[in-house]
């Protein structure tokens, strides 16, 4: 076995655990040497990113099934395995995660206190996220899912904004609530499968998962009802993470209070986990129920789109004391809006829809991450995010303005930028199935444009606020984090096939499974 062969044989394990190795290294660095700690973290996230590029390179695009599978017994008594693999669905997410983590390390330069703890947590977070995306064992999935929660809690709670404790505890409790529901379903799957297993692929086979009637607390559930209950529980568990209306209120708060890189990770990666979970677990294991629920899912997507857009708009119209006037919150609500497109695309079981949805997940990761990074750039300089508090920055910081404009336009779905393609695909797919919902959802496009442009106008246009006469332009380090994202946004806006090629085979198979249901 050659050296490279050894790495490639366990590529996913390398990707997931390189940050952990980095964590171990950072652990032994003296805490005063902030620079060393940062660069070490950057080095290991870079390694992980390079490994994921290698993954992407070696990935067989025509194969719909799982690749790079590694399976080892972990807790044999309960038939639990260390079982990882990646297919078209997860590889995009892995790429997104490693890329954003790497860039976020550089955005974390502004963290000045508790540098060591911060980077330890951050690396752990990355490992947790990657673990979620590669796990094929429900138990392992759950472990990573929870593992990721912990560093997030500390990252928000220690390095966050003025209401960090409140935000952190809310985030933690809310998502934990979702996890508990997921745990219930996980156990149900385990005990109703013959033989008992946590293997997601096995569970997806109807001859393995045999759900029976249930009589509990005096309520008798038939098989069909019980399966639906399971689906709903699982759905709520993931919906909180997505987040789907009305489970979304942790999101604006957490985004606002979290430090910039953590907001980036939250928006860029964590939100995708809910949708990923639905696609990875709910859809293949409970296809009939997914079909049964699809209309509701589309409706929820619609609500997310409209409601998120209105709430984002309210950030401009509402004064600060009524919870408005916050740039970060505006972007946070726009995330809700964007995730609505994902839901809509997922709900319709068409090629365009589901490809668009997953592509939208990817694009949202790029654009919203970029927006949050940009907010962080100006926040580091002026230490506030009030939309009313700026004005006319376009004269002072043209490059910054250009980047914000690019990200905003990408976010509002301007053609030529990547989000447009995914949104268009979603609409093309969903119109076939739910025309009325789709038409209503297109309203979201207009509102999106309205609030993004309004925000741009408030911040960058008009006469220059004299307060910011000496505002510094984006520096090289910040550009280093922003330029790759802009380039990707542009590139995938013009030529989206590299990403679509990665996932289309897998999604097509998933679709066949769902259409059979």
């Amino acid at each position: 076995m050659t050296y490279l062969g050894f790495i490639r044989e366990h590529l996913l394990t390398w990707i997931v655990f390189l940050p952990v190795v980095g964590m171990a290294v950072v652990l032994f660095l003296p805490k005063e040497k902030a620079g060393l700690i940062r660069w070490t973290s950057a080095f290991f996230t870079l390694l992980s990113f390079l490994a994921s590029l290698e993954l992407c390179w070696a990935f067989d695009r025509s194969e719909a099934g799982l690749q790079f599978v590694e399976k080892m017994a972990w807790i044999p008594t309960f038939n639990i395995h260390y079982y990882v693999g990646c297919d078209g669905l997860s590889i995009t997410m892995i790429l997104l995660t490693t890329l954003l983590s790497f860039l976020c390390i550089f955005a974390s330069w502004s963290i000045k206190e508790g540098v060591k703890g911060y980077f330890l947590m951050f690396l752990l977070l990355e490992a947790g996220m990657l673990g979620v995306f590669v796990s094929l064992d429900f138990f392992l999935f759950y472990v990573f899912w929870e593992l990721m929660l912990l560093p997030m809690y500390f990252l928000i709670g220690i390095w966050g904004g003025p209401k960090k404790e409140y935000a952190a505890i809310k985030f933690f409790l809310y998502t934990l609530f979702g996890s508990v529901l997921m745990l219930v379903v996980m156990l149900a799957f385990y005990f109703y499968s013959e033989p008992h297993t946590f293997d997601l692929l096995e569970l997806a086979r109807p001859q393995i998962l045999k759900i029976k009637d249930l009589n509990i607390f005096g309520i008798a559930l038939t098989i069909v009802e019980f399966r639906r209950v399971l689906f709903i529980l699982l759905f709520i568990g993931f919906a909180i993470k997505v987040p789907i209306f009305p489970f979304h209120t942790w999101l604006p708060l957490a985004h606002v209070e979290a430090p910039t890189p953590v907001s980036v990770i939250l928006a860029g990666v964590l939100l995708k986990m809910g949708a990923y979970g639905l696609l990875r677990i709910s859809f293949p294991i409970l296809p009939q129920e997914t079909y049964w629920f699809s209309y509701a899912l589309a409706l929820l997507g619609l609500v997310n789109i409209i409601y998120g857009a209105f709430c984002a708009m309210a950030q401009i119209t509402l004064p600060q004391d009524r919870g408005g006037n916050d740039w970060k919150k505006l972007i946070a609500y726009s995330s809700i809006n964007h995730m609505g497109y994902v839901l809509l695309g997922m709900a319709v079981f068409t090629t365009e829809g589901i490809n668009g949805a997953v592509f939208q997940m990817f694009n949202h990761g790029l654009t919203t991450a970029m927006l949050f990074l940009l907010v962080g750039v100006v926040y580091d300089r002026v230490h506030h995010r009030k939309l009313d508090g700026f004005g006319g920055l376009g004269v002072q910081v043209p490059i910054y303005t250009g980047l914000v404009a690019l990200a905003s336009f990408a976010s509002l779905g301007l053609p030529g930028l990547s989000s447009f393609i995914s949104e268009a695909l979603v609409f093309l797919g969903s119109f076939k199935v739910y025309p009325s919902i789709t038409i209503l959802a297109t309203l979201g496009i207009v509102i999106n444009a309205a609030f993004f442009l309004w925000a741009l106008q408030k911040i960058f246009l008009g006469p220059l606020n004299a307060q910011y006469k000496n505002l510094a332009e984006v520096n090289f380090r910040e550009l280093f984090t922003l330029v790759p994202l802009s380039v990707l946004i542009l590139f995938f806006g013009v030529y989206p096939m590299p990403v679509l090629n990665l996932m289309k085979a897998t999604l097509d198979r998933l679709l066949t499974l769902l259409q059979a249901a």
Partner: protein
Amino acid sequence: MLESLFLKFLPSLDPMTSAMVMLLGMPLLGFVIQIFIGKRLFRGGDWVSVGTIFVSFALSVLLFIDLLSSGPQFQWTTSWTWIDLPHFQLTMGILVDPVTILMLLVITTVSFLVFLYSIGYMHEDPRYSRYFAYLSFFSFSMIGLVLADNLFALYIFWELVGLASYLLISFWFEKPEAAEAGKKAFIVTRIGDVGMFIGILIIFFETNGLLHFDSIFSYVAKGQFGGEFLGISLLTLAGICIFLGAVGKSAQFPLHIWLPDAMEGPTPVSALIHAATMVAAGVYLVTRMFPFFTPEARTVIAYTGSFTAIFAATMALTHNDIKKVLAYSTISQLGIMMMGLGVGAYVAGFFHLVTHAAFKACLFLCAGSVIHALHTQDMREMGGIRKKMPITFTTMGVATLALSGIPFFSGFVSKDLILGESLSFAMENPSHFLIPLFGFLSTGLTAFYMFRLIFMTFYGEPRDSKKFDHAHESPWVMTLPLIILSLCSLAIFFTGSPLGLGELSLWGEKSQWVKYLLEPPSSSEHPTSAHLYALILSLTMAGCGILFAYLIYYKQTLSSEKIAEKFKCIYKTLTHLYWIDELYEWAVIHNLLRLNTLLAHFDNRVIDQVLVDGWAPITISTSTNSGDFDNRAIDQMLVDGTGKVVRASGKEVRKIQTGKIQQYLLVGLGAVCGILILLTLV
């Protein structure tokens, strides 16, 4: 010629493809260079933009010459798969046919001239190179728009054009009005775009994924496009939805309100984007999709167009801002084009687009020249600069004549054709008499306000002497485009026959190149019997307009009004002429002015503030309420409420926490024993 040129220089590539890519890519190249390193280049890099657009211009001219030689059957198309998913393909492609080539010619010509003009107009601006970058970007998007061979690609460039428009309108974004106007333009057009997108969705849905123009048409022609929604056939509905995009882009009623505001942008931008090219994109879209529209849809288009025409024209009467007058005029003219297309005058409508592009661009550039000289846009501060700016005056005069529909000028030819078609349409369908009526009325009004503009600006005494003294003729980079464009506004440029596109032709059918090149779709083109009436009517209307303008703004100076007042009591009953004159003034002009004020008010208050801006409070209150609801009901009550319940119960429950670990253990042991005893008992 073009192909042989490319074969000579790039023999390894497909000549047409490379030509098209170059045509499209040169402005993009200019944009990229300008946005990144423009500031550091010599002269702010204006030569890059101008050079690149000149290449595109040259290519389109060559293309046009090829077209002339090969005839109207010319069509070249290529396409490649852009998004390739299982059971789903989106293609990108280039379609080159006479309509495309004419549009290309218009776009690149006007672009090139405006670029040239901008060198003079913008030379003091601190963001000079950025301005050229945006302009290049606009040209790129516009060229892309016309080259697109399917609706989806068209939609993409459609939006990009809107972006360019946004950037350029709010180019002087330090002015809050400019920032506001840019935003307004983008959002209002986006409303139309959403309609268009829904139209695309319907087509995509109905045709099972066909978006290519030709395939849509053949699909429709085969009658496979069925389906109904609320009693309206989906085909009509899709047509109206597509048309909605055009309404937004071409500033048709009721989405026209953005265009006057868009005049906050630099004047060359107004000339290029908001007069000649981008706003004409709506018309282009309708032309391109012409076979797709059902008669019902066409009627809607015709009514919208004609109403817009008259509506905008009346509004133009009251304005004193030189650019706004032109803006309302643009809206009105676009309405005329739409009306033409709506009544089936395919060739005429598109022809008017071409002629209008030339003279309206010329008008705007002239206005820019005047503004450049006087540093004001208010016509009341102008006057008498005819002598000081002879070139500007002459060229503007020519363009005004063209716009007013005076024979021997291009506007006459095309407008007359439209009016004739509309008249014959109304003769066939008498219930639709309003359409030609509005058309003719707007012709008269157009002539009136245009001459009012000319008279107020160039004639009479200078009203602001300080500004007048400062005024001078513009440099040659600015006047050269004026001259070229005014030459293009002559009828001779488009046709051998001075009175229209009749059978009479001086230099063969090719000299009437617009008509020669455009192949009317089979269904349209009414008999030309009504043309004579139309000609007379429109000429009359135009003449009346000019006359009134002349009487009011040229003849009737302040002193003449005083004289009239002095002699009023003496000749009161004798000279009915005055009575009629005064009555006319009182009854018509005054009422007309009042009506105009009212309409402007209506436009401002009802349409703008209530119907459009009225959505803002609703949107705002909805969003505010949603935000409040989110904060109060969902977050504070449902989510935090759960927390409160837990906390309250925790407060009680924690009393059993004594902090003495042995007690806990004792309880645990007791529980174990208790459970064991219970188990034994059971």
